[in-house]
């Protein structure tokens, strides 16, 4: 690129052209900056209103209170997050009981047993499970699953209950577990499988004894992502679980140990963090009231929890990944 007179001009000195190049580059950079700005905006929006909220309600009271009633009829608001955490935990754990085993088995089947033909049909079909709008799942839970369960297994079930909502959340998160786990299992090199067969292992032993341990970091990170998705799930629980923030009834059991009967929690209505936010949003949204600010405090909690889980999932996938 010497700039002598003989050599052709390779530097593109034309000002207009360079301006044009720079303009387009700048436009693309601006688009990319929007994604960073979104994160900052979410954080600032949540934090600014949450700070106002925490000036009214001390953080300790918010985190340890066992009563959630933002808009009571007779006055005396209470903002304790514990019942909401219990509701969220119940839905998440129950959904995980469905999504994690089913998703893992699905991933094993897709990666180890399925013929290429079956895989090419099953994989897009499973993605449908994640593509159905969640309000539709909520409607299914309320109108079909609850009456079916009531008629067969649990006659004492209430119309709005945690169980059918959790089942639907579980079904919805199956593809999250299965697709990420399957990617991890497919990345296990064939040499390992062949070595297993060489030692006389059966297909079952190779699948469960070699492939699953070798891809355990991917499976674990898929679990965390699915659980974080279940924590943030809104419409299914809003439609099917009702909106009653309650502490589970503690029963006096044998040996003096207090025990919570799972049926008391699962078959009754409850409230998750997301439901509490939606319930407040049904009222006044112009800002300035404590319930309005409390939404942002709840949102901040949700944001922090899901962000931390994502970071953990990332770290697990990075650090414990087997390098082949």
């Amino acid at each position, binding site marked *: 690129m010497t700039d002598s007179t003989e050599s052709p001009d390779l530097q593109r000195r034309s000002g207009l*052209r360079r301006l*044009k190049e720079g303009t387009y*580059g700048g*436009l*693309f950079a601006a*688009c*990319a900056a*929007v*994604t*960073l700005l*979104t*994160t900052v*905006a*979410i954080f600032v*929006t*949540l934090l*600014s209103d949450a700070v106002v909220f925490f000036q009214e309600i001390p953080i300790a009271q918010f985190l340890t209170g066992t009563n959630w009633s933002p808009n009571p009829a007779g006055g005396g608001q209470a903002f304790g997050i514990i019942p909401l955490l219990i509701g969220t935990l119940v839905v998440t754990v129950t959904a995980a009981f469905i999504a994690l085993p*089913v998703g893992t*088995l*699905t991933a*094993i089947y897709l990666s180890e*047993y399925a013929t290429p033909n079956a895989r090419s049909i099953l994989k897009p079909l*499973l993605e*449908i*499970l994640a*593509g*159905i*709008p*969640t*309000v*539709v799942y909520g*409607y*299914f839970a309320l*109108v079909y699953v609850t009456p079916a369960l009531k008629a067969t297994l649990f006659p004492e079930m209430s119309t709005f209950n945690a169980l059918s909502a959790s089942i639907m959340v579980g*079904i919805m998160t199956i593809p999250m577990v299965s697709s990420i786990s399957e990617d991890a299992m497919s990345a296990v090199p064939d040499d390992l499988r062949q070595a297993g067969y060489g030692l006389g*292992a*059966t*297909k*079952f032993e190779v699948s469960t004894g070699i492939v699953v341990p070798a891809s355990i970091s991917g499976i674990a990170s898929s679990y965390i992502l699915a659980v*974080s998705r279940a924590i*943030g*799930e*809104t*419409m299914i629980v*809003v439609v099917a679980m009702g909106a009653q923030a309650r502490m589970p009834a503690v029963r006096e059991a044998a040996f003096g140990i207090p025990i919570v009967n799972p049926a008391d929690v699962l078959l009754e209505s409850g409230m998750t963090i997301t439901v509490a*936010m*939606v319930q407040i*949003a*049904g009222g006044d*949204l*112009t800002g300035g009231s404590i319930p309005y600010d409390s*939404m*942002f405090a709840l*949102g901040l909690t*949700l*944001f922090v929890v*899901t962000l931390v889980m*994502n*970071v953990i999932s*990332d770290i697990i996938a990075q650090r414990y990944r087997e390098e082949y």
Partner: protein
Amino acid sequence: MATDNTNAGGFGEVSRVRGIAFEYLSLGASVIGLVALGVLLVYVTIDAFDLANASPEWLLTYFLTLVVPFLAFCLYSASDPEVTRRALSALGGGLVAVAALFTAIETFVAPIPRLSWQLAYLFVVAMPVTAYLTYIGSRGRAGGVGFGLVGRLVGGAAIGLAVGTLFLVFDSLVWFLAYTLGVVPAAALYAYGRRRSVNWAMTAAVPVGLVGLVAAVFLRGVIVTYPSDLIIYVWTLAIPVAIAGGLVVADRGSRLAGAATGGVPLAVAVAGGFLAGGFGVPGPTALIVLVTVGVPTAVYLHRVIDEGDGLVGLALPVLLVGGALVGALVVEAWGVPAPDPWLDASFVTEAPSRTAEDAGLYPAIVGSVIIIALVAVLSFVLGVGTSVFLEEYTPESGILGSLTRLIQVNIANLAAIPSVVYGLLGLGLFANLLGFGLGTAVTASLTLSLLILPITIISAQEAIRSVPDDLRRGSDAMGATRWQTTKNVVLPEAFPGILTGTILALGRAIGETAPLIMIGAATTVFSAPASLFSRFSAMPMQIYAWANFPQAEFRYGVVAAGVITLLIILIGMNGTAILLRNRAERGS
């Protein structure tokens, strides 16, 4: 399976029971979610179309007049005796099997609510066989032509209706001025520059167009007399679409054929637009739909007739419409008791109501279409810009490289933030701080665009990454700048992939409810929104509102109809995306 069956040569017996049990367990796990969803979808379909009250005669009539001719068409198109044999044995054997199994369950276990063996046969055997035969048939020549024609008719009508809906909120007069002052001169300059290889004309096209658009906004209030809506639509929509269609054909064949393909649908559409008022149909809508259906159909017909292969397929729309008409006539003539579906024409054209019988989804559909149109533009521009920046403009190492990695990690994290939190962002930032208003279409579109942005970016990045590097290097070697390479090589090559990803992401946006609740969208509005800043509802919001109604007619009827409408739109969008992807894969 290599070692499972080797018990010769002194090796010990290997138990296969555990392995086989595990294989079937995992197979069961992979289909259980799908089966559960399938059963739920069957029930919601039965509720939406009131099939529980359909008499067996009614089902049989339509099965014979509509389904059987369609299956025969597919089998003819496939013209494979093996497929025919398998399909017939599945239909026949399935009939016996389903009837027997169903009766056995009803007698020995428990009655199955709201399902008869005829319905079970319809959903378990007839629908999968039809889907399979549609797939097989579409690969034959006649079937390909037939489905291509039906696709253009249906897709054209859908696009026409959507465009017509957009003009409910966008000022058609501004559009008229912008088109006349901006788009037409810019397009003319560009075409002139391209034809005569005049560089300045092509460069000037963009600024001229922008000046025209700005002038249009300012002149909107100054000019007082405008032509009627119908003439505006003819000038700004029908004529350009017809010209585009004509040019496509003229490019391939003769100029005369091009003029005919553009001119005939245009004439029909204009006539239809002026006559539509007499039938109680709004003229502009009729005009737009006729143009968007007519021109692509004419272009397609010209191509098919030109190739002269599989012309029988052109009879498919006639077969379907004729079958439906004959079925209706038979039902009418013999007085076969017919079900009263919740999902019918009045459901999608009327406003919500307190009584289940009159309830409709029209304002919510309009709201959804408007939001999705805005979201499509916003997320497409932002998504393509970001992915081009990340893939083409930034190095992988150095300080800029770590900035790229930061953006990348940030996008992955954005994708995992719950949608309800995005709703809070919309509420706090767009609705209250920036003052776009609670529950307006603008607030909703901005919120949903940010929500699906990570998905759009990730899929656009994949599409751009799959463009072979040879093409870029070739373009660089010819002295192209980075922008020229991006514009002329990378983006055209990656476009189908980007479009597919965007449509799939839009499918996600159209079903989102939680963010809409958080920004204060109305659950029920009784008239279609009149501007971008008026309160609106969307399909999932309306479904959410109805699901809370305690009456059984709402729970089992109206909501089911709403759910099916939403799912049909979703299937249409995702199907289009998959077709685009398949076509692009075949092409390359």
